[in-house]
């Protein structure tokens, strides 16, 4: 078991020295598009794509330079400028972990940029959409590339902002505006955890830089309550961003945004930031088998089941995929909680998930594009003949996510399940169960959409999407096909990441014939078969049947919103009502009463002002007499 390699200060120039361009390009794009505004309407989307692609090129070149270095030198810190004098120097940390993320973000991001040209072609605000996308890419890159927690936090908030802007992109829809607000507010809860965690880190270690933290922790291995508190608070932050229980409620509503946004931000990249946070901090604050690490795994396992159950009941194709996203991130968290043994699988699943989930979302977007933006799967059916490319790519994504043997998801998900069964048997078997449910709900989605009878609206004329949309689908589906195997077999990703995250006691071996793996496959097959019986062969009712208690439970998002409402919103409303009441009656009453008292008193007092000079003279004489008496008294004393 080895700790991560030491971070070396990068002095030579080269691509690593210029890696800040990765962030600068999309940031510049966003700035140009936002500042020049309508002037850029004609070519704004092209600039957005170009900036994203430029960032991708920089990422690839940096990646090539990194793998050219010996393993122990693959963690390079690039100093940019002094940010908070004496405390934080802004810099980038280019290491296998961050460059993996950067490649995913810029790669999938660029594909989704290209796809969006077609998807948003009829939207008058396409230029603004691309500026937000660029802003998101820049912020996300800052999040993963920063070499300290402050930079990470800035990126963290930046992606939160971009997410808010993009969920509410169609702000004329009240539901979108509300969903954006909800995402923002729920994320604040997580951000609060992250922020407080950072405070405690600063108070305990007097630094927020990864390299400094690494050195200190290598000298004095951390222990005690402070580290547990830091870990749990960082986990809270991760839960907010990654839509894990109990902060999961915003993700389903976030599907109000345009579909490319759902694909890029709320499936492939941003929501995995929590996993990144846990893995990045893993060597510092999540030692294996510690309370906080187990908490990460428990949260992951709970969320993967919850997401899967929600996914089973949704008729809205995007919400179904959102439930599945929750569930898959739950797998990643489960893996991330297992320490270095699980990191490679978690990150691997994260990357392959980025591909196949983006593929699925963009496929769903393509379906919606052809079906007049209809999202209800009960009004689809039999689309495979009308959208062959979309169907093919969606089907590949589907096979990948349910873990069909030899596809991407099979390797990464089974890797997580096997590791979990090995380290945390209960959570592991729950993950196996979750995989079975995944098989059911994803099959249901495919059968309802592409198979069976046509249940379209009368004015629907399904057609294949333009090439600018199908090409990204094809590229993503290639990733969904082969990437998992490439990363996991012969432990390529494990050895690549090990300088950044450390190594486990025993090098994990992918076992094609493990008990858990076989049981998983069997359960997936059962789930898919059940789905075929219910939705493939049988008629799908156009209106959702009432369903059992369990169905209602899942349709209502496991009563997450109801829970939030009764636990936080209602008491909050009561509190505000009480505060308003107190303000109106108590404080205003006091102030108004005082004012009325003074007014009434002065109204009576002014009656003294009779206008008769003789009355005034009388009071003057009384005053003089009083003065004389007082002087007399004082003189006598």
């Amino acid at each position, binding site marked *: 078991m080895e700790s991560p390699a030491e971070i070396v200060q990068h002095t030579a120039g080269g691509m690593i020295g210029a890696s800040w361009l990765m962030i600068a390009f999309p940031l510049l794009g966003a700035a140009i598009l936002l500042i020049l505004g309508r002037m850029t309407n004609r070519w704004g989307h092209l600039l957005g794509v170009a900036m994203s692609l430029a960032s991708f090129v920089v990422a690839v070149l940096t990646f090539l330079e990194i793998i050219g270095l010996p393993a122990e030198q693959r963690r390079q810190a690039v100093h940019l400028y002094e940010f908070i004098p004496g405390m934080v120097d802004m810099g980038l940390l280019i290491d296998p972990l961050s460059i993996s993320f950067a490649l995913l973000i810029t790669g999938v991001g660029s594909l989704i940029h290209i796809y969006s040209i077609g998807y948003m072609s009829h939207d008058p605000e396409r230029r603004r959409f691309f500026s937000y996308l660029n802003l998101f890419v820049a912020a996300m890159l800052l999040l993963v590339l920063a070499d300290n927690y402050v930079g990470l936090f800035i990126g963290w908030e930046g992606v939160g902002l971009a997410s808010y802007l993009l969920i509410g992109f169609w702000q004329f829809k009240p539901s979108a505006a509300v969903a954006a607000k909800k995402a923002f507010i729920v994320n604040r809860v997580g951000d609060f955890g992250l922020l407080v965690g950072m405070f405690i880190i600063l108070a305990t270690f007097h630094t927020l830089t990864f390299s400094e933290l690494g050195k200190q922790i290598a000298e004095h291995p951390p222990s005690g309550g402070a580290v547990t508190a830091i870990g749990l608070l960082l986990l809270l932050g991760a839960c907010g961003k990654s839509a894990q229980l109990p902060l999961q409620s915003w993700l389903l509503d976030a599907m109000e945004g345009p579909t490319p946004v759902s694909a890029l931000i709320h499936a492939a990249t941003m929501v995995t930031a929590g996993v990144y946070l846990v893995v990045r901090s893993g060597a510092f604050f999540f030692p294996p088998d510690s309370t906080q690490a187990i908490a990460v795994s428990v949260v992951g396992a709970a969320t993967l089941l919850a997401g899967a159950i929600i996914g089973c009941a949704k008729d809205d194709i995007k919400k179904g995929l959102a439930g599945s996203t929750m569930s898959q991130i739950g797998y990643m968290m489960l893996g991330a909680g297992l320490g270095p043994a699980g990191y490679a699988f978690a990150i691997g699943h994260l990357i392959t998930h980025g591909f196949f989930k983006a593929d699925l979302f963009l496929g769903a977007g393509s379906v919606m594009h052809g079906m007049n933006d209809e999202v209800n799967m009960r009004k689809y059916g039999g689309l495979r003949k009308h959208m062959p490319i979309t169907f093919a790519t969606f089907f590949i994504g589907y096979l990948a996510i349910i873990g069909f043997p030899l596809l991407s998801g099979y390797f990464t998900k089974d890797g997580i399940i096997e590791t979990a069964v090995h380290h945390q048997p209960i959570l592991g078997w729950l993950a196996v169960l979750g995989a079975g449910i995944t098989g059911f709900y994803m099959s249901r989605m495919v059968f309802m959409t592409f198979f069976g009878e046509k249940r379209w609206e009368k004015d629907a004329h399904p057609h294949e999407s333009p090439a600018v949309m199908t090409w990204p689908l094809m590229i993503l589906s290639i990733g969904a096909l082969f990437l998992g195997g490439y990363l996991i077999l012969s432990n390529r990703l494990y050895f690549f990441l090990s300088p950044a995250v450390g190594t486990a006691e025993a090098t994990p071996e992918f076992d094609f014939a493990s008990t858990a793996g076989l049981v998983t496959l069997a359960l997936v097959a059962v789930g898919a078969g059940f789905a075929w019986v219910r939705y493939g062969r049988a008629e799908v009712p156009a209106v959702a049947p009432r369903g059992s208690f369990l169905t209602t439970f899942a349709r209502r998002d496991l009563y997450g919103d109801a829970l939030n409402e009764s636990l936080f919103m209602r008491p909050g409303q009561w509190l505000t009502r009480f505060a308003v009441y107190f303000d109106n009656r108590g404080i205003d009453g006091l102030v108004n009463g005082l004012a009325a008292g003074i007014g009434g008193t002065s109204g009576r007092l002014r*009656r003294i*002002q*009779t*206008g*008769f*000079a*003789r009355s005034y003279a009388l009071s003057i004489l009384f005053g003089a007499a009083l003065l004389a008496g007082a002087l007399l008294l004082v003189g006598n004393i």
Partner: protein
Amino acid sequence: MTTHYLVLSGLLFAIGAMGVLIRRNAIVVFMCVELMLNACNLAFVAFARQNGNLEGQIIAFFVMVVAAAEVVVGLAIIVTIFRTRRSASVDDANLLKY
């Protein structure tokens, strides 16, 4: 003897003050004010002799001059008010009130 003069002065002053308070004819009120001024003058003169100092008399002299000036202006005001309001009662000029 000084005590006697001072007591007389105080009595006259109080009587004048009472006159100011109870009379309504502006001219009579004015006369009462003059009486109060004269009472003060008496005290000044008495003190001048008590202390062997002529300055008390000088002050009394100035009081007389100022009182003369005051009477001139005050009576002119009364005449003006009477001309416009046909009344010399101080109670009739009571517009400046709540």
